[in-house]
């Protein structure tokens, strides 16, 4: 059984923009799926539909054998706890310490009162520190999150997502605001999580060179439709022009 099945998913925004047009694909356990396409092709909408931060207009989402398209309330929160997410802008709480930010990944399993009073179970503290070690910044646990560099902040965000012990990790342009060297650093941690921790990853990416290096499979979106599905090696120059338009020139990030 596949981990995730997307069937004929469509999204029309209230202003009439059709962001997704009947998108269907499946994701197997352990995959590192890259989603590519121009800005505005629907990549971010697709990712946010998967964990229902955005409500799809039609179609269905089946996760781990259960239809999650219309679940609400506690069921939706339990579903989201199984899916980590990281963002282009990291979305940390800058005024809080790195450790507090990582602990926020466990909010779903802590009561509202306990979380507001900062009462996290001791094992969550241990886990948070271990996750910070995984991404190599355990020494920064007690500094304010907004004092870190972009790459370090993204690693904190990864540690926060790991607190959910996610079956699936959604990464929305995780390196688009980072410089090339830092980008590889962050992508390597994602690769490690994918292979060593067995976490399935769906990652929106801009740079094909990163896709070729880290992804096991690719889908390409254009105007909200899937126009390519296959292995990274299959993206030839012709495909590249088809996905990105005739004017596009590939830029590499080393």
């Amino acid at each position, binding site marked *: 059984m596949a981990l995730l099945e997307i069937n004929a998913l469509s999204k029309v925004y209230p202003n009439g923009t059709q962001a997704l047009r009947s998108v269907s694909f499946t994701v197997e356990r352990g995959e590192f799926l890259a989603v590519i396409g121009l800005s505005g092709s629907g990549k971010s909408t697709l990712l946010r539909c998967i964990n229902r*931060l955005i409500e799809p207009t039609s179609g269905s989402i089946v996760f781990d054998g259960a239809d999650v398209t219309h679940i609400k309330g506690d069921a939706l929160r339990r579903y989201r706890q199984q899916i980590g997410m990281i963002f282009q802008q990291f979305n940390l709480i800058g005024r809080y310490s790195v450790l507090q930010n990582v602990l926020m990944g466990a909010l779903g399993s802590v009561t509202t009162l306990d979380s507001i009073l900062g009462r996290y179970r001791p094992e969550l503290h241990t886990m948070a520190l271990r996750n910070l070690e995984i991404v190599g910044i355990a020494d920064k646990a007690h500094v304010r999150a907004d004092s870190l560099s972009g790459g370090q902040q993204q690693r904190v965000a990864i540690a926060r997502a790991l607190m959910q012990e996610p079956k699936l990790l959604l990464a929305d342009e995780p390196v688009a605001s980072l410089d090339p060297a830092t980008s590889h650093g962050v992508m390597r941690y994602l690769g490690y999580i994918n292979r060593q921790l067995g976490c399935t990853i769906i990652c929106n990416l801009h740079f094909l060179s990163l896709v070729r290096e880290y992804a096991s499979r690719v889908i390409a979106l254009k105007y909200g439709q899937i126009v390519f599905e296959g292995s990274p090696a299959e993206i030839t120059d012709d495909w590249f022009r088809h996905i990105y338009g005739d004017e596009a020139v590939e830029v590499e990030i080393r």
Partner: protein
Amino acid sequence: MRKRLSQLFLDWLACTYGVVLLHRIVWLEVISARPLPFAWAGSGSATILTTVPDWVLYAIVGAVGASIAGFTGASLVALLRGELAPNSWQRRIALHVGSLLLSLTFVTGWIVTKISLTDMFSSERLRAAGRIFSSLLTPEFSILPQAIAAIIETVYLAFMATALALPASFVLSFLAARNLMREHQWTRLLYTLLRIVTNFTRSIEPLVWAVIFTVWVKVGPFPGMLALMVHTISSLVKQYSEQIEDIDPGPMEAIASTGARPLQVVWFGVVPQIVIPFLSFTIYRWDINVRMATIIGLVGGGGIGTMLNQYQMLAQWHEVGLIVLVIALVVWVMDYVSARIREALL
């Protein structure tokens, strides 16, 4: 279509306004020298249709003007929207009409406020001015202890109004923030109701609230505090909720994606982004409240304002001079302290 209609309506308002001023001020007041005040009802109009009330005629002439503006495109509203081509004759005419309206408004204002330089600078008036200024500048220091006691009352009154308004405003501001309330129709309804209520209470001046509360509870600092509190709540809810609407939605998304509950999303995704601006607004509000508290005292709201009112009615200007001095000093200190605290926060 809706835009066209709203343009026509606004042009009609502008034209009617212009016609009213032209007739009432220029024709009746200046040319035929008939004195104001405005006698709206039953005044014999200078037109043929004497049976029709003036305001109907104004509206009709205004509508004619608006239609002309609509057909030719020389519309005032279009000018303000920046839709008229530079150097076009429509733009020139609209500009002329606009400046005519502005000058008419100025002339009307001059007449209505009864501005008179002779009232201000005749030798008799200047002597009166000299009397009051010399009294104010030689304050009577014997009442200083009472004045200090009264201003302490005022400062604490302002503090209590702010402190009691704070928790209420904090909670209500989340319910009055569009970005948090737009998801469901019930929360949207609550948001709309809250916005209407706070807009309404805010549009009533604290002075009016003070009058209401001096009737409700007895005269003294308590009604003054209540008046300031009501006004503070409605002002802070507006400022707070606008701050909430301005936040970066990213952290909220991130917290929601972990499977957190709605209250946790607000506490971790919203609150850290707004604490500092909230504190800053609140301290500024206290500062404003100290000034308002002195005014509210004038209608029986307690503190230094009440004391000022008493001495002013007895025409004891030396004592008034001292009170004004004390108020100025305290307001200046509050202003300075609140500015320093807000600087340190940011």
